[in-house]
């Protein structure tokens, strides 16, 4: 198959994305905000009873072994996967084309694949005050024992759905609807002003 020429992807955050330090940063920057711009964001769902087969397919295609338990996840720097609902997983890759890699493996008997690469925007918040800022938006427990490394959560802010993965001890990746991404980004910047933030 000939290589498909994809149009250059533009960021929905562009008009509000201002690299540099902002807010109350005179005493230091306590959170760093960035857009990670992964090439592939997929949602995989297994029919009831087919979850283990889907987890095995994810392991074969991405090399990532999902841990047991609700909301379990793992990331290796370039790829990430986490459960966000019973039998449903979000899989992310820095490179484009992950949907094609899965296409032959996830048969209609096992489940479904939905390519959300153009439908979601990935925002990363990192730093010692990341939990503090996140807690302003989401009514969930961000403490490390309750929200372990690699784990994913489905929740919402102001009635708008979001998925969150803990990608570091003080770092979270937030997946929001692309159409709401700029609004969320502006709100995230406002919420970060008091601790001082840097946009990278």
């Amino acid at each position, binding site marked *: 198959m000939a290589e498909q020429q994809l149009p250059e992807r533009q960021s929905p955050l562009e008009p509000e994305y201002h690299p540099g330090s902002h807010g109350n940063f005179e005493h230091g920057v306590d959170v760093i905000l960035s857009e990670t711009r992964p090439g592939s964001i997929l949602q995989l769902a297994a029919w*009831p009873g087919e979850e283990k087969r889907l987890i095995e397919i994810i392991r074969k295609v991405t090399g990532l072994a999902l841990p047991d338990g609700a909301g379990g996840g793992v990331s290796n720097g370039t790829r990430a996967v986490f459960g*966000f*609902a*019973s039998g449903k997983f979000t899989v992310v890759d820095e490179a484009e084309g992950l949907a094609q890699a899965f296409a032959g493996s996830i048969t209609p008997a096992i489940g479904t694949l939905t390519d959300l690469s153009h439908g979601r925007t990935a925002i990363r918040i990192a730093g010692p005050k990341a939990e503090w800022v996140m807690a302003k938006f989401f*009514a969930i427990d961000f403490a490390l024992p309750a929200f372990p490394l690699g784990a994913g*959560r*489905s*929740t*919402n802010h102001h*009635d708008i759905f979001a998925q969150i993965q803990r990608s570091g001890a003080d770092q979270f990746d937030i997946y929001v609807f692309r159409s709401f991404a700029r609004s969320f980004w502006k709100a995230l910047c406002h919420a970060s002003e008091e601790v001082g933030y840097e946009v990278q």
Partner: protein
Amino acid sequence: MLITCPYCGPRDVIEFTYQGDGNRERPQPASQDLDAWNAYVYDRLNPAGDHNEIWQHSGGCRAHLRVVRNTITHEILSTAFARGGHKSADNRAEGRS
């Protein structure tokens, strides 16, 4: 009020959507039994105490849940996936066919 989702764990009630009385049993779509349809649409137990309810975790994993809630104290006594069969507060629903 916190509802413990079987998948997501304890979450604030703002993440959930109430989907009605969990004691109702929908008649077969082809049924012409007007009494059964009338009961399905209008009859409610309205108990002062434990109540079977259907909720959806619409702001989380989006699963439909069977919840037993005390209507006086708002205590959540049990939660389970709706697809896993159901657990009744008063056995009324199990008695129907």
